[in-house]
């Protein structure tokens, strides 16, 4: 049978991007432990509305761990304590009756707060815009089976492409670095035959756009720990290698081993 939890929440409230924020304490009583973490916040919000208080804004959408919208710091950890789990997939049975839970928005200069727990992650789109694509206009494609791709390569590209763009890697990093996100996108495209033509141009553009917004990587590894898709840090090494190659003067030879 499901348990009922009585909790204390300490939540960051901030009315707008330029207003000061503060932690506010709320009781969260009668929470069924089958509820997800976000459903727990729903229940708290319904209570606030009933009491005439402005509800807490928090980011969420698909609630099945794939859209990448949700994400808050739970007791100081991005997406909470469960490994490989987005906030929306975290369930209250992982908490104990009487717990105090501290909930904060993603912490990073590149992600300014919009309101309460919602931040602006548009720099991630800027990195993709800089070169995170293959230039293949509609209608130009050859038959899909004309380019065989070894299964191991496709699987590795997929491991990287699994990134949901939630920004937990940045939030967890002591430097607010964007390396894990950027390198995952780069490895996805740079490892495939279709991505070779633009490989070094892409790498250079995306890395340098990333550096406009985010801090530097110092190999703490907190990013992979926090990642709900458990994207590996190895991709950062591959990115660094490709970035160095991209700076080679004779770029037409850069693709050689």
């Amino acid at each position: 049978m499901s348990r009922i939890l009585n909790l204390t929440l300490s939540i960051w409230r901030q009315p707008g991007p330029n207003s000061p924020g503060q932690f506010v304490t709320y009781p969260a009583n009668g929470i069924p432990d089958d509820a997800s973490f976000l459903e727990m916040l729903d229940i708290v919000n319904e209570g606030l509305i009933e009491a005439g208080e402005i509800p807490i804004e928090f980011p969420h959408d698909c609630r099945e761990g794939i859209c990448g919208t949700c994400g808050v710091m739970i007791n100081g950890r991005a997406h909470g304590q469960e490994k490989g789990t987005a906030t929306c997939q975290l369930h209250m049975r992982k908490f104990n009756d009487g717990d105090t839970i501290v909930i904060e928005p993603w912490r990073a200069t590149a992600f300014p707060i919009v309101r309460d727990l919602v931040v602006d992650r548009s720099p991630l789109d800027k990195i993709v815009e800089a070169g995170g694509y293959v230039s293949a206009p509609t209608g130009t494609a050859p038959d899909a089976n004309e380019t065989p791709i070894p299964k191991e390569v496709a699987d590795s590209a997929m491991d990287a492409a699994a990134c949901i763009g939630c920004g937990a890697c940045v939030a967890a990093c002591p430097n607010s670095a964007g390396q894990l996100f950027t390198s995952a996108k780069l490895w996805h495209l740079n490892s495939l035959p279709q991505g070779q033509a633009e490989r070094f141009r892409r790498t250079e553009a995306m890395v340098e756009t990333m550096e406009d917004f985010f801090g530097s990587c110092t190999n703490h590894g907190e990013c992979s720990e926090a990642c709900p898709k458990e994207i590996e840090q190895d991709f950062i090494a591959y990115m660094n290698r490709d970035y160095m190659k991209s700076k080679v003067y004779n770029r037409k030879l850069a693709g050689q081993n």
Partner: protein
Amino acid sequence: MSLGTTIPDSKVPQGPMADKWDNHKFDIKLVNPANKKKFKILVVGSGLAGASAAATLGELGYNVEVFTFHDSPRRAHSIAAQGGINAAKNYRNDGDSVHRLFYDTVKGGDYRSREANVHRLAQVSVDIIDQMAAQGVPFAREYGGLLDNRSFGGAQVSRTFYARGQTGQQLLLGAYQQMMRQVHEGKVTLHTRMEMLDLVMKDGEAHGIVCRNVTTGEISSHSGHAVVLATGGYGNVFYLSTNAMASNVTAAWRAHRKGAYFANPCYTQIHPTCIPASDEFQSKLTLMSESLRNDGRIWVPRNPDDTRAAADVPESERYYYLEEKYPSFGNLVPRDVASRNAKTVVDQGLGVGPLKNGVYLDFADAIGADGKDTIEERYGNLFQMYDRITGEDPYSRPMRIYPATHYTMGGLWVDYNLMTSIPGVYAAGEANFSDHGANRLGASALMQGLADGYFVLPYTIGDYLAPKLGEDPLSLDDPAFIQAEADVQSQVHRFMSIKGTRSPEYFHRELGKLVWEHIGMARDQNGLEKAISEIRSLRDEFWSDLRVLGDADTLNSSIEKAGRVADFFELGELMARDALDREESCGGHFRVESQTEEGEALRDDENFAHVSAWEWHGADTAQTKHAEELTFDEVKLTQRSYK
């Protein structure tokens, strides 16, 4: 209900089925490459259909503006599709062809779709796979490096391409990246966190949209030569569904209120393998791939008062209802049949779980026969997901499953060019009604979204634009824009000034209960009439007792939600009217009064082989129904049987 005129022209081209699309592409008007930049197209929605349309239109040279209420275009709910995407590539050499995919789709839709559209969909399906592979979508491969396929949703050929259990994610990222390239090139302008709240009309044509910036509350007008609505389906009218929390009907509905016909709203698809709701606060339902039914056996205890754990119920006291009723298909009957039978046993009080709202999906036999390792290899990620959500280990006890709303086949009526009944407004992807008839086949939603966005709309839109060469977009100072902005402003103001006692969430949940109860898996006249009156009274309560707190000039999700729920009320009522009017059963629409002796959906081809397209006349006036007759030249109408 009042009956309107028959829809005379859906612009389906003449000629043999296989030549229609090619002939049409030749016959329609083109916009000269140098002139494309003189046209501005507004694309609302950034899912598969919206992103692929925006990318392609940008590549062609049009000026494109994209609007999404999400913080990033990559959040659109296409991202959550798991299973795969169909294409008539015949890479398996198992007898697939364009004609077979076309035939399967028309039949699967229970003969309620437009043949010519479906044929075109099957034709372009092969190009989609080529395009997405070229974009770098990491489709599953075999060791030889060629693309892998699987059979899906009971299809007799293996035509489904996939990328692990995240096909929707990978396809959406492909389309999104292609669109971001156009943003980089300056051909596409991206507006995030902008929710379309009205369509701007002048002289019977669309000229733009009015949006609200959801983070600042600012209301703004945007003018263009054409508007593309790629805003998804309306499954969230049920409150609990597999849709994302923010998925809504608002953009399509506001276009409907401005004159776009809304077609077949009663065609909704219920997916049989979802995790049942656990309590009142459940906010959404999670789908698990129906591939689970390949190895799982579905049953409930024969005794409604059985309180034993599943493993302790002896074989003789288990009711394997699908295997008993459908010996040849067993647990693999189509989605609608599996869903309805689950409802029947739960309604009989045979349901399992704390709320007795599910049925067992049992893998004990499969684990016994093939070993735990094999089952883990096949379904490991799904078992893990189930465990995470329910806290129960499906290797040691059966899963509990129950049907949930998953997809809506109905939507804005469109002609063969994907133009709605409003000149200048197009609808693509799940937002339109066109290709799936009364029931969608598995792995066909992704196909249709990309077909519309990549290969149909970019051609057909030129036919509308070409004669408009030289016309500037309507000035934002035009009274039409000023009026539309004022209307949007006044609705926001109205929400804030009711100052009642109930949240938008409360009304949504209550509406969902009514819709699920009366317009869900089985519908009858009494229930539908009751639904109409109960939805109306709840709607009245909404407009007198709504509570929206906070300010309008900041992020305030209660305002967004209130607008969406207001539209769901009107849509819910129309769904009931449409279901009431359609006195037959077909696909996802099951009228209790119309079934075979075996309890299967019984169509009435003589009276209902048509599309019902509804015209808006105001919130308190019944819509007019316009019928588009469906003719079947290629596919022979038959009664489905899965015995």
